[in-house]
C-alpha cells in the first residue's frame, strides 16, 4: 500500500544531552535518488548511523522515533542486520583488501562455495569454513555487477594499485551484487574523485536507480545534486528543513536552506569599521599537508587591525591554513608579515615574529590538561621570551600567579583558583585559558581556530566579544577560522570561504547566506543565478 520504500518518522537522538537530531521525518521512494544535504553537524551522519545500526548509536542510548521499511517498522541493531534488510552503504573510507582481486573483494564474506563431493566430506569433517570456493561463479557475478556500472576493468585485477575512482566503483559493485539490495547510501562519494570520475559515478548512479534501487546521496556539491537527484532533503542543526523535488528548485535555493537565516548572534555594529589599508599579513600560494584538511594553494591579504574570517565545510582545508602557517604541519608558500618574509615549518621563529595561535584542538594541542591554569597561561611567553623566570633562570611562581590572576579577571575564567588543573575546567573556560596564553605572549597577529567549538552560547558570546575588543582597542590583527558561519559574520570584517583547499571567494559579513552557501559548495559563480 505504501508507495514509500523507507520512512523516517520523528527521529531524535542526543549524545549525552547534546541534541544532534530533533524530530526528523522524511521518506524515500523506491528507485529514486534522494540527496541529503546539510552543513557539518547538521545530523546527516548520525541519521545514517541510525539507519545502518552502527554500534555507536546503541552504546549511547539508542534513538527516538521509528524507521519504516516497506511499511514495516524496522530497527537495525547492527550493520549486519541492516544489510540483511537490503540496505547497503559505501563509506567515505574504503573498506577493501588491497591484495585481493576485484571479484574477491566484491564477494568478500559472501563467497560462493563449490557443491561437490569433496566439499561435502571436508565440511562434515572440518566444518563449513573449509569448503573450497567456486571462483568461476564468483567472477561471473562480479562481472555482472561491474557491467551494471559500465566498468570495463577485468574482475581478476588486484585492488592494489587501482585509481581511487575505481576503488569507489568496486565498493559500489559489492553493494549492488547483493541481490536483495533495495537502498544504497553513498556518503560523499565524489569527494575523492576527479571531475571525470565523478561524472561517470553520477552516470552509474542513474543506472542503479533505473534498476529500482533507491539511493541516498550525501554530498556538499550542489551542482551534482541538481544534476542527478530526484528529490533533496535539507537538514540544519539536527532539524529537518524541507524536502523538495529537484526540478522545482535550484542550487541557490538549496544553498539558502542549508545555511539558513543566521539570527543567533547579532552583529553589534552594522557599519563597516575603518581599517587601514596597510597590509599586515600576506599569504601567497600556501600549500599545507594537513591530513583531511589539505590546503592547495591559498592566497589572501590581511590588513592591519582587521578580523579576517576563514570559513568553509569540514575537510575542505580551512583548518590547514593556520596550522600550516604556525608550522604544525608541513607547509610551503610565501608568507610575509609587514613585508618581511616569514620562515615556514619553524614554529619557534613564527612565534618570535609575533604570531600567536589558539588551536582548534584544545585538549590535544591547546592545553597541558594535567597542569594548572597559571602554568598553562605562562607557557609560551616563558618559552619564547624567557619571561616569568627569576635570576637563577628558574620559574618565578609569584610572577606566574600574578599574571594568571590578571588573565582570570580579564577573561572571567571560572575556576576554583589559578592552581586548578585545566583538565577540570569546562570547555569555554579551557578556551579562555588558551586565549590567555596567546595574549600573555603579546602577539601582533592572533590566529584562532574554532574558538567556540563545543562551548555554550553564553561563553561563545564572551569569547567573540573579547576578540572584537582586542582588535578594536589593542589594534591586534586577528585571523579567525570557524565552521560556524554565524559567528564569522558576527565579528569578521571579511570572510574567505575555503573549498577543496582553495579560496572560493572572499565576502563581506553582510553578504547573503546564499552566497556563502554557494561558495561552500564550490560554485564560484552561478550562471544565470542572480546575486543580490
Amino acid at each position, binding site marked *: 500500500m505504501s508507495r514509500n520504500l523507507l520512512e523516517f518518522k520523528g527521529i531524535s537522538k542526543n549524545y549525552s544531552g547534546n541534541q544532534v537530531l530533533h524530530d526528523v521525518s522524511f521518506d524515500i521512494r523506491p528507485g529514486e535518488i534522494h540527496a541529503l544535504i546539510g552543513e557539518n553537524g547538521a545530523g546527516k551522519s548520525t541519521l545514517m548511523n541510525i539507519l545502518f545500526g552502527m554500534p555507536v548509536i546503541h552504546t549511547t542510548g539508542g534513538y527516538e522515533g521509528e524507521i519504516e521499511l516497506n511499511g514495516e517498522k524496522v530497527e537495525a541493531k547492527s550493520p549486519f542486520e541492516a544489510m540483511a534488510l537490503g540496505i547497503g552503504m559505501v563509506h567515505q573510507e574504503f573498506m577493501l583488501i588491497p591484495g585481493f582481486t576485484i571479484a574477491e573483494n566484491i564477494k568478500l564474506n559472501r563467497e560462493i562455495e563449490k557443491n561437490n563431493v569433496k566439499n561435502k566430506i571436508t565440511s562434515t569433517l572440518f566444518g563449513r569454513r573449509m569448503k573450497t570456493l567456486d571462483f568461476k561463479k564468483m567472477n561471473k557475478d562480479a562481472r555482472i555487477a561491474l557491467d551494471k556500472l559500465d566498468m570495463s576493468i577485468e574482475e581478476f585485477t588486484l585492488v592494489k594499485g587501482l585509481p581511487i575512482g575505481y576503488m569507489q566503483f568496486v565498493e559500489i559493485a559489492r553493494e549492488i551484487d547483493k541481490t536483495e539490495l533495495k537502498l544504497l547510501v553513498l556518503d560523499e562519494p565524489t569527494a575523492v574523485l576527479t571531475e571525470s570520475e565523478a561524472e561517470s559515478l553520477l552516470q552509474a548512479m542513474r543506472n542503479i536507480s533505473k534498476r529500482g534501487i533507491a539511493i541516498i546521496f550525501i554530498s556538499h556539491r550542489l551542482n551534482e545534486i541538481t544534476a542527478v537527484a530526484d528529490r533533496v532533503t535539507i537538514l540544519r542543526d539536527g532539524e529537518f528543513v524541507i524536502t523538495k523535488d529537484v526540478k522545482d528548485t535550484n542550487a541557490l535555493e538549496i544553498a539558502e536552506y542549508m545555511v539558513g537565516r543566521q539570527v543567533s548572534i547579532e552583529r553589534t555594529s552594522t557599519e563597516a569599521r575603518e581599517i587601514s589599508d596597510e597590509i599586515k599579513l600576506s599569504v601567497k600560494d600556501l600549500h599545507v599537508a594537513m591530513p583531511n584538511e589539505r590546503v592547495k594553494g591559498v592566497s589572501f591579504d590581511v590588513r592591519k587591525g582587521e578580523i579576517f574570517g576563514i570559513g568553509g565545510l569540514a575537510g575542505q582545508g580551512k583548518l590547514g591554513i593556520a596550522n600550516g602557517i*604556525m*608550522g*604544525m604541519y608541513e607547509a610551503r608558500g610565501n608568507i610575509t608579515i609587514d613585508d618581511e618574509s616569514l620562515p615556514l615549518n619553524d*614554529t*619557534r621563529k*613564527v*612565534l*618570535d615574529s609575533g604570531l600567536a*595561535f589558539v*588551536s582548534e*584542538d584544545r585538549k*590535544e*594541542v*591547546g*592545553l*597541558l590538561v*594535567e*597542569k594548572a591554569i597559571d602554568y598553562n597561561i605562562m*607557557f*609560551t611567553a*616563558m*618559552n*619564547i621570551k*624567557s619571561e616569568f*623566570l627569576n635570576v*637563577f*633562570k*628558574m*620559574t618565578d611562581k609569584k610572577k606566574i600567579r600574578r599574571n594568571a590572576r590578571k588573565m582570570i579577571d580579564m577573561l572571567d575564567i571560572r575556576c576554583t583558583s589559578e592552581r586548578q588543573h585545566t583538565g577540570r575546567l569546562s570547555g569555554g573556560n579551557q578556551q579562555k585559558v588558551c586565549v590567555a*596564553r596567546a595574549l600573555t605572549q603579546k602577539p601582533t597577529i592572533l590566529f584562532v581556530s574554532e574558538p567556540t567549538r563545543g562551548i555554550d552560547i553564553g561563553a561563545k558570546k564572551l569569547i567573540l566579544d573579547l576578540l572584537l575588543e582586542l582588535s578594536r582597542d589593542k589594534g591586534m590583527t586577528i585571523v579567525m577560522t570557524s565552521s560556524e558561519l554565524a559567528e564569522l559574520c558576527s565579528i569578521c570584517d571579511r570572510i574567505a570561504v575555503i573549498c577543496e583547499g582553495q579560496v572560493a571567494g572572499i565576502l563581506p559579513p553582510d553578504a547573503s547566506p546564499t552566497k556563502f552557501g554557494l561558495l561552500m559548495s564550490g560554485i564560484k559563480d552561478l550562471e544565470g543565478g542572480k546575486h543580490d
Partner: protein
Amino acid sequence: MTELAQERFSLLSLFKKIPFSTRVVGGLYLAVLVLGVVFGFSIATLISASLHFFGVWAIFALANVPSIQSGTGPNFALPIGIVNGLLAMVLVLAAGFTGIWFIIVSSVTALVFGSLSGYLYGRLMNAVKGSEMAIAPYTGFAITAAFGLVWLAIPINHPNMVFFLGDGLRHQIPLDYFGANFILAEFLYFEVFGLEVRTGELLVVFVACLLMYLFFRTKAGIAISAVGRNPLFAKATGINVDRSRVIANMMSTAIAAFGVIVYAQGFGFIQLYDFPMFMAFPAIAGILVGGASKQRANVTNVVVGTFVFQGLIAIVLPVFSRALAGTDVAGVVNQIRMVVQNGIILYALAQMSKGGK
C-alpha cells in the same frame, strides 16, 4: 575526640597518596624486616644494609627521570652510560689518579663521555620514535658486548688492572690497590645505635636529586617535561621536540656514567665485561616502584622507590639465609633473592603504564 578523628583521617589520606606499587613493595619490605628481627637481626643492621644499597643504586634510578619526562620512556639503555663511566674510571686509574682525585677526575670524565654518547643515543631514539622501548634495551646489550672487546684490546698494562696471563683488563679491578675504595662511603661516616650511615654517598645522592629537582624548574627542564606530556602542545609553543629529547637522553646517559662511579666505590671494585648488561632493569624497577609511570617521574619516586626496592633486595639474602639455615632448602636462598628481585621488576614493568596506581 574530633581532633583524633581528624588526625586519623589525614593519616589515611596521606596513606592513600602513596602509590599502590610503593605500598605493595613497601609492605613486603616491612614483612622481611619483621622476619629478620624475629630471627635475631638487629633492626639497625638491616636498615644499614638497605641504606647501603639505596646509596649505590639511587643515581641509576635518578638517571631515568629526564628520559621518562621527555617521553622517551625509562632509559633501558642505561648500560651505555655505565660503560662510559667504566671507561672513564679505567682511563683515570691508568693515568695514575688515586684516592679522592680518582673520584673527582673520573666523575668529570664520565659526565663528558656520557653526554657525548647520550647525544648519539638521543639521535637514535628520535629516529625510532614510537618503538623506543623495543630498541633501547638492545642498544644497551649491543654496547655492553662491544665494550667487552674494548676491555680486551685497550692498551693498558697496569699490573693491578690486567689479567695475570695474557692481555686485557680483568673482570674485577679492586679499588683498594689504588686507595680509591669507599671514598664516598667513608666520607663523614658515622654510626648511631648500630646504624651505619655512609654520609658521603647519601650526600651525593641528595645533591644529585636536588639538582634534578631544580633543573625541572628551569626553561629547558620545563620544555622537556612538556614534550613528554604532550608533544603537540610543546610543538605549538615553539619547543624543539627532538632537541629536548636529545638533551634529556644526554643527561640520562651522563648521570648513569656518574652513577657507576658511586656504585664502584661503594662496593670497592670496578666490574667490567657483562656487568652493565642487566643494570637497567633494577634501576628502572626502583623508580617505577616509587610511583613513576612511563611518562611521569620525579625525584620523590626515585628516593622512595629505590629505598624500598633495593632495601628489600639488600635484606632478603641475610634474613632468608638465617631463616632457612639447617633446613633442606638452605641452598636456594640466592634463588629466592633472584625470584624476589625479578618478580618485582616484572611487576613494576607491568605497572609502568599506570604509574603505580
